[in-house]
């Protein structure tokens, strides 16, 4: 199928409106993406026609809802080419998924004297849970791999920090939410495994922008979130190998995660139910399923190719703007651009762009250490693309930035 961005834009009701009298130019998909009508309608249909709690009732609606919920798990497994749907655990979002691993695997499997290795370009979601683990006095060390001036993961530094064999887990982003850098995931898996470590990827950005294949990648844990993948908020995914799930103690206790409860003892349900305590995000799972069907019908290779065109175009247009400093110039990158203007603070700039109908994010994008690394503590403006982003929108952004610079001159 050829990629027709104008046809795709018509699938997103929110893009049809004007903001402050100007057409909406939504360049904040990296924070959360907009939803196609197919997702909205699937969720409405679920609530209007097929809603009940799952895994409980022996009646038609509950069975239908259970079937839909488990079908969503199957769709996720297919989307990331997992070997088994049971490897897919539904969580609230990526943050919850990483916290699940930090609590359960970090506290139950990691041993005193072992270390967790992250990188300077992690989102706080893949940094703070590990800092919390470090600070609990369990004797678990936290190591941080450097980022080069170009905004790439310094692989020599990664190798050096893995060298003593004490790292039990490498937890790194698959694509930076600030620099756009795509990390060399296959190589990192090899490096981690050769050093005796397990590896987790924060795929919150990457899973949206390219095809990820769990069987080909060979990692141990992979997380991403529904709302950046054109699905609803409130649902995320932890992909974890069954052998790890077996060894991991539950994180949250409650209903649906047990096979037997007496007042004296409890037996855990088998994976992945063991990690899905309480009523799960049922409507959200249906929405995520619809989102996966939507992007799969377009095809991830087509999504990736469209984004590559946008990235090349943005690189050219942004490089032309005087006084614009771009954070990171990685070779392999996705559609996320964080930058500053020499004479305008990020927040002032975002206010101006908003006036032009352009939605961008300003600040430090939940990556304060990374902004400190690049000496931009006061923050950057970030433009991030989705499959509905057009080259014309990037031209309009560039024009607005040029005029903003004049405004503050």
């Amino acid at each position, binding site marked *: 199928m050829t990629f027709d961005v104008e046809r795709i834009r018509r699938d997103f009701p929110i893009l049809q409106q004007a903001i402050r009298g100007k057409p909406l130019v939504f360049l904040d998909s990296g924070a959360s993406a907009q939803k196609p009508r197919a997702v909205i309608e699937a969720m409405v249909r679920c609530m209007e026609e097929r809603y009940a709690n799952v895994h409980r009732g022996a009646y038609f609606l509950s069975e239908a809802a259970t079937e839909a919920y488990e079908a969503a798990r199957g769709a996720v497994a297919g989307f990331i080419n997992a070997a088994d749907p049971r490897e897919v655990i539904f969580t609230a979002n990526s943050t919850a998924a990483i916290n699940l691993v930090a609590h359960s695997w970090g506290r139950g499997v990691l041993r005193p004297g072992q270390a967790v290795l992250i990188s300077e370009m992690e989102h706080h979601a893949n940094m703070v849970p590990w800092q919390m683990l470090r600070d609990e006095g369990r004797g678990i060390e936290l190591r941080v791999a450097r980022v080069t001036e170009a905004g790439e993961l310094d692989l020599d530094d990664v190798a050096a920090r893995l060298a003593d064999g004490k790292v039990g887990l490498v937890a790194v982003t698959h694509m930076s939410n600030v620099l756009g850098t795509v990390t060399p995931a296959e190589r990192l898996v090899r490096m981690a495994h050769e050093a005796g470590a397990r590896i987790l990827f924060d795929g919150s950005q990457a899973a949206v922008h390219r095809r990820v294949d769990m069987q080909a990648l060979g990692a141990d844990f992979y997380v991403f979130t529904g709302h950046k993948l054109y699905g609803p908020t409130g649902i995320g995914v932890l992909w974890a190998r069954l052998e790890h799930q077996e060894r991991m103690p539950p994180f949250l206790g409650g209903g649906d995660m047990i096979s037997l409860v007496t007042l004296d003892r409890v037996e855990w349900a088998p994976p992945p139910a063991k990690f899905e305590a309480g009523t799960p995000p049922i409507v959200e799972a249906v929405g995520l399923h619809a989102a996966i069907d939507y992007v799969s019908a377009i095809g991830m290779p087509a999504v990736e190719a469209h984004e590559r065109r946008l990235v090349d175009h943005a690189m050219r247009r942004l490089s032309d703007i005087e006084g614009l400093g771009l954070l990171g110039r990685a070779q392999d990158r996705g559609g996320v651009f964080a930058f500053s203007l020499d004479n*305008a*603070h*990020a*927040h*002032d700039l975002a*206010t*101006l762009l908003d*006036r*032009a109908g352009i939605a961008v994010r*300003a*600040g*430090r994008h939940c990556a*304060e250490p990374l*902004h400190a690394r690049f000496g931009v*503590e*006061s*923050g950057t403006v970030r433009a991030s693309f989705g499959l509905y982003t057009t080259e014309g929108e990037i031209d309009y952004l560039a*024009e*607005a930035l040029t*005029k*903003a610079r004049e*405004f*503050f001159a």
Partner: protein
Amino acid sequence: MFDDLRDLYQEVILDHGRKPRNFRRLEEADRTARGDNPMCGDRLELFLKLAPDGSIADAAFQGRGCAISTASASLMTETVKGKSAAEAHALSDRFRALAMTGTCPECGAELAEEMERLQPLSGVHEFPSRVKCATLAWHTLNAALDGAKEASSE
């Protein structure tokens, strides 16, 4: 493209944003306080020198922030000089009302001249996400006057 933003970014604000007044450390300050807006990374340190009667003999600040927060801090240091602590608190309350609503119906004739000088910042009330930029310096002033070390505009 941005003409209607001249209400928010009046010349006075752009000027104070680019060239903040009293932008320095006050050696031998009697009171200092730090203001942080963790959401956006704005940060300032305020220095107050007090006269024997407790009034503000000198005020200065340092830090980093957007044009609005820098201009607000700059204008604040100018307007609170010579004010008693009570007057400075009153000014702070009035300014925050101005930043949040665009007007200050409670403001009487007292301190009218000072409020007039701060008027250019009133446009910020139309930008809910930016009100905190304008009020950060004033939260920090309250903290310094009350002897606290830190203020946050969260």
